[in-house]
């Protein structure tokens, strides 16, 4: 459904030239939960921005439902690594921004935004400024803002990266539930291996310098995952080991 075809991306700045992605090819299937896992700086955000049409690849292309992607698509929603809620808008108005761009009438915008906020359990704070919310709540607003557009694909860039473990686990379960309920295709970036295993159908492993996909794993655990102890599952433990070995994290730590 979403095909990444031989995508390369190079950042040229006066100081340096960074090869953020080299010849990445990957197909994302309809309805699946796909995670990108890899060390910092391996091009995960870059690829996600390209998938959203926010950036153009230096080479290669993205094909979405049979058509080459050129620019931002209505059917693809984005949850940013650093949320970026607009402080001059209250929570509901933040969620409405995409609907405004589509010319949705105010009353409908309001209804849809409140609905999206209800999905993430935040309808009570619809009218407060975003900077009065905790980090976890802000991240949920970021999710609601994307969900309000009913996207077919949801791109999430390390949405729980800045959160404490407890909040993180709660949100992991919530996102997993939302995904089963909505049937949206999700591409989820993280460098937390356990998080990727808990959430995903498949995991694409990235390596850096230059950024590339080195393996794609099938997780193969049954859903729903929150109903059993994924951490303790033997297959999960083995997968975790192999991912960590594959990424060479051990070696790096030892060196």
């Amino acid at each position: 459904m979403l095909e990444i075809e031989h995508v390369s991306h190079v950042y040229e700045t006066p100081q340096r030239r960074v090869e953020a992605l080299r010849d990445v090819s990957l197909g994302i299937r309809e309805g699946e939960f796909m995670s990108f896992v890899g060390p910092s700086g391996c091009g995960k955000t870059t690829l996600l921005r390209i998938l959203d049409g926010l950036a153009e690849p230096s080479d290669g292309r993205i094909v979405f439902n049979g058509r080459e992607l050129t620019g931002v698509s209505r059917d693809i929603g984005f949850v940013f690594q650093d949320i970026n809620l607009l402080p001059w808008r209250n929570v509901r108005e933040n969620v409405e921004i995409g609907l405004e761009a589509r010319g949705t009438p105010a009353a409908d915008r309001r209804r849809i935004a409140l609905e999206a906020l209800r999905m993430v359990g935040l309808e009570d704070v619809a009218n407060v400024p975003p900077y009065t919310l905790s980090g976890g709540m802000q991240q949920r607003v970021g999710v609601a803002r994307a969900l309000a557009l009913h996207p077919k694909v949801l791109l999430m860039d390390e949405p729980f990266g800045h959160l404490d473990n407890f909040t993180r686990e709660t949100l992991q379960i919530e996102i997993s539930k939302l995904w089963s309920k909505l049937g949206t295709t999700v591409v989820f970036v993280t460098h937390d291996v356990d998080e990727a295993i808990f959430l995903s159908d498949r995991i694409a492993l990235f390596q850096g310098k230059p950024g590339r996909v080195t393996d794609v794993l099938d997780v193969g655990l049954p859903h729903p995952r929150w109903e059993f102890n994924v951490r303790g599952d033997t297959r999960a433990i083995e997968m975790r080991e192999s991912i960590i070995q594959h990424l060479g994290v051990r070696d790096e730590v030892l060196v």
Partner: protein
Amino acid sequence: MSGIVVAQRRRARPSRKLEPLLPAAAVAAVLAVWQWSGLFLNPILISTPAAIAGDLVQLVTRGVIFDPLAESLEELVIGGSIGIAAGIGLGLLMGRYELVDKVLSPFVNFLNATPLVVIIPLVIIWVGISQNARLLFIFLITLWPVLLNTVAGMRNVNRGYVDVGAAFGLSETDMLRKITLPAAVPYILAGVRVSAGLAIIGMIVSEMEVSLTGLGYLLITYGNSFLTGRLLAVVFISSMFGVANVMLVKWVQATFFPWIAGAAAEQR
């Protein structure tokens, strides 16, 4: 380690209850020394707080202050607000259109760098010794900081906010209206404060240098007559303009843009 540092800092500080009183106490101490100096210093040099306060009351009760004050205020408000409005307007144009920016920025930067008091003779040549000359001067001195700040504000929008606008499909106009402009408000307000401060300076300077009117007239007259008490009473009134400016901008920000303080507090 850190516990020791904290403990030392605690000891070095006056107790919490007294701390808020410290500024007031400092002012009171200076005033007291100043007043005491009056016992042996010639009052023409620096007068005394009590004498100045007395002169201030007299300026008010005898009604001497009202006409000059009204004149000054009128010039300040007209010249200053036109300057600030034009500065924001031009800044928005330069921020929005690269071409306008490229064409105007050498002039803007040159004029901003020029100590603009030097153009008073030119202003007089243009419009003669008149209220218009004073207004023009205030306008010219007010324009630049707010203009430059507006441009800077539009150029320095948090990349994350721009990404949000792009990802959620905002049109170019909506991007400007809903992202760039609000994001530039803190810069613009800071520019307004600086510009308004310059407008006050422009007001006084033009009243002393273009033609004697308003508070500038009083300052020169009292100075020439060695009426130091009254002179300083007028100085005090001029200072109040600056204080009012800062308070006004703070009020505007707190009332209409409470998110600025909120978002800044969150960053910490």
